[in-house]
């Protein structure tokens, strides 16, 4: 099964479970969790079921397209369900079956793995899912997001697309994976991998990036003061990406590093709090709409 069919299969599967199918968010980010469709929507009492593919950038993992396992940008298939359904493990295992993975022919296990992202004030408990010893999915019950307790709890399922595909397609090198008929990952992503690696490690301008961090941070705060959560959060994401490039570049000194993470954490916490307050002002519309439907 090629990657395109895998994505279509997962989309169909989660769409059938009532997930809104969304597209990738258009600001650079390090992980699917950072999309506002996850980070913000996991906050507060409103139900939320969504699935999307998220291209995730990890500048430090850039290898000029030379390494068979590491990528500047990889793809995650992200599912969020709030509140977490009782049969979520079964729903997940059904998605593997849909991908042609028959559990009876493999060894599938849920191995403890607790997830934490201190710079976003997030923590969760759950597992990494092993398929014959390979970690193919992160499965997390969010306990805290942006420093706020999750009530109800969202479950996050993150499939590593390339990882899973390398298993399904029995390929050792990520660039040999077939994306769709006639196109490999190499065809589509080799050049950007090379160029982004070169940019990250060689040609990026640290002074400009430091400057941008400050500008973005200021703008995030200014928009927060206006109660405009989404524009504010976009700028937090931009801060995070700029920071990741600078960090990969080795441009951030020791003391600065801690300070920068602290600054982002503060922003993330403020955004989370503001989002909650704004939804509350609106009367948590999705929650109440659901209530109305129940009465009919």
């Amino acid at each position: 099964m090629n990657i395109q069919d895998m994505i279509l299969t997962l989309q169909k599967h989660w769409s059938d479970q009532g997930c809104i199918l969304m597209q990738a968010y258009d600001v650079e980010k390090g992980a699917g969790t950072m999309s506002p469709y996850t980070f913000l929507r996991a906050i507060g009492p409103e139900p939320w079921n969504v699935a999307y593919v998220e291209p995730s950038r990890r500048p430090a993992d850039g290898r000029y397209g030379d390494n068979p396992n590491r990528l500047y940008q990889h793809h995650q298939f992200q599912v969020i369900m709030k509140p977490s359904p009782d049969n979520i493990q079964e729903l997940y295992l059904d998605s593997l079956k849909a991908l042609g993975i028959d559990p009876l022919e493999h060894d599938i296990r849920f191995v403890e793995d607790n997830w934490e992202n201190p710079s976003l004030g997030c923590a969760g408990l759950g597992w990494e899912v092993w398929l014959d010893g390979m970690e193919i999915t992160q499965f997390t019950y969010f306990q805290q997001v942006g420093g706020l307790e999750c009530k109800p709890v969202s479950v996050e399922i993150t499939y590593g697309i390339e990882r899973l595909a390398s298993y399904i397609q029995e390929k050792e090198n990520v660039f040999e994976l077939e994306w769709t008929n006639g196109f490999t990952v190499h065809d589509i992503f080799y050049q950007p991998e090379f160029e982004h690696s070169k940019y990250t490690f060689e040609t990026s301008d640290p002074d400009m990036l430091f400057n941008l961090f400050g500008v973005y941070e200021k703008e995030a705060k200014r928009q927060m003061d206006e109660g405009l959560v989404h524009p504010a959060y976009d700028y937090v994401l931009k801060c995070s990406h700029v920071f990741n490039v600078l960090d990969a570049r080795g441009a951030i000194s020791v003391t600065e590093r801690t300070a920068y993470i602290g600054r982002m954490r503060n922003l993330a916490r403020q955004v989370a709090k503001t989002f909650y307050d704004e939804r509350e002002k609106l009367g948590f519309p999705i929650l109440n709409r659901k209530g109305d439907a129940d009465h009919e």
Partner: protein
Amino acid sequence: MNNQHLLLEIGLEEMPARFVTQSMNQLGEKVGKFLTEQNIEFGGIQLYSTPRRLAVIVKDVSEAQKDINEEAKGPAKKIALSENGDWSKAAAGFAKGQGMSVEDIFFKELNGIEYAYVNKFVKGRHTADLLPLLKEVVLNLTFGKNMRWGSSDIRYVRPIKWVVALFGSNVIPFELAGVQTGNVTTGHRFLGKTANVLDASSYEDTLRKQFVIANPDERRKLILDGLKKLETENNWAIPVDESLLEEVNNLVEFPTALFGSFNEEFLALPEEVLITSMKEHQRYFPVKDADGTLLPYFVTVRNGNDYEIDKVARGNEKVLRARLADADFFYKEDQKANIDDLVKKLEKIVYHEKIGTLSEKVARIRRISAALGNLTHVSEEVKAAADRAAQICKFDLVTQMVYEFPELQGVMGEKYARQKGEKEEVAAAINEHYKPRFAEDTVPSSETGALVSLADKLDTITACFAVGIIPTGSQDPNALRRQAAGVVQTMMEHNWNVPLEDVIGTAVKEILQDGVGEKDTDTLQKEMIAFFMLRVKHILQEKGIRYDIIDAVLAKNGGTLKETEEAASVLMNHKEDDDFKETIEALSRVVNISKKAEGSHNVDTSLFENDEEKQLHLAYTELEKSWNKADSMEARYVLLEGLKPMIEQYFDNTMVMAEDEKVKQNRLAFMSHLAHYILKFADVPAVLVK
């Protein structure tokens, strides 16, 4: 009585393997305690657990609580009866309180006084009516980490999926986190289905049919049998690591062992790298030949049967191949780097935001180990080796291999250092300086390793104390207690005759000079000594030393840790001696009375009035000469013990607190001179003698 078996099974989403066994034991204990508290008799308890269930079977549980049939004692007769012989209010109240009436009261004598009594009888309730209270037992289990899920407010180790609760063949009704108890269990996630459980006695078999081995001991044996079979078939030796076996056992419900292989070229990697990849990352058992040489095979335990097992083996091989290829790449890259360049990189790594960078820490380790080298009078060769080892002891932290395999810190340092031409003792010290790594680990065996180890640990502990990271109760995130114990053990084993205060002083000086924290020297030094003394006390307790003797040797004046430990052993060895009690009492008398001395004075022998004084003083001057020549605490104890008869005669014939002020002060001065030596051995009056 008609006894029945009780079965309680809590079905969960996969629990963390590390919590399974302890949670199972806890469930057993708490169910047993519940029944006992409820006055319900029962027979044996059998425990079960898998990643997805905790279960307990209690055999022969009584059908009802025991009846209570006892004499309840009330007020004294004279209070129970009023003057005219009627029942008093007190008597009526007592009878009512026991659920009886005054007609039931009788009198009985107790210790010469007559009291009101009633024969109290409470019929035991039916067990079946009380068992729904097990809900609280289930909810009261505690786990290392709890979570919430869905919209439930319950915090538990993982979401609760089903609960089987049977008394005999009847369901015990209660509800937990939206789950109603029943008689339906769940089998293996893929091979099994749900199944009805008739009663406790069919529990194991019901699950076995659904591909679940609920008894952890049986599962464990199946795994070991599987390993054994592979060993025999292939002429292998598979060393069984207990903690890995325990973890694997708690990751599977239906174990099947299988093996895979990897490319022989990877055997060129250090064995530790291969073993860590297999054991820590993949939970595989590494395979060796009869001579203990690692072979290019691994054994894993599948949670399932042997259907398509080759496919599972191939999948696992692929994963290991990718991991080892990564490791191989890192190993080759690391070998291109130069140690001093790597050391330079430590400037970029924060050790702790309040403490500074690793580079600063390393500079301190170097200075502290140099100071310790001078204090311990080690050879110049050791000093030179320790200086180089201290300088490069953390370089491997910035290698790619340790970045990927943090558990190999020190191990890789040693290997790379040797490859890059560092001296053997320097290379070994890089690995040794992390020792002892855990509670039962050995200390660094070389003096070089021991110096660097001490310097590193002292630096860590002192720095943490300086910035207020101090262990409290169960909170000790930086394992400072273990590290302090490591310092103490290392000093004891190397017989270093350096007072603990001086050792601590070296680190306190360096930390404060580097501007870490805001404490003054005196405060920090005192906090550190108190912390270390507690560790010493703990270590002595572990060695089985009596409490009073620990207190006595810890309160002695000066001396080394080794001497403290020795003094404790000497007292333990002599405590059964015939004259131990007299010896301790005689020495204690000297110490106690010496406390009355004011200031320190020389002893004027011309003021002595009797022979016993002169004799004891003569013995004292002998003691003074022999003390430092005595090469062990045992020898010193013998010296002190030898004074006993003279001390006794002295006190029999001498009034220390004499009327003549000059004589009195002279005698007190003498007593404190003598006490000075006794206290160098132990604070003898603290020793308890019967």
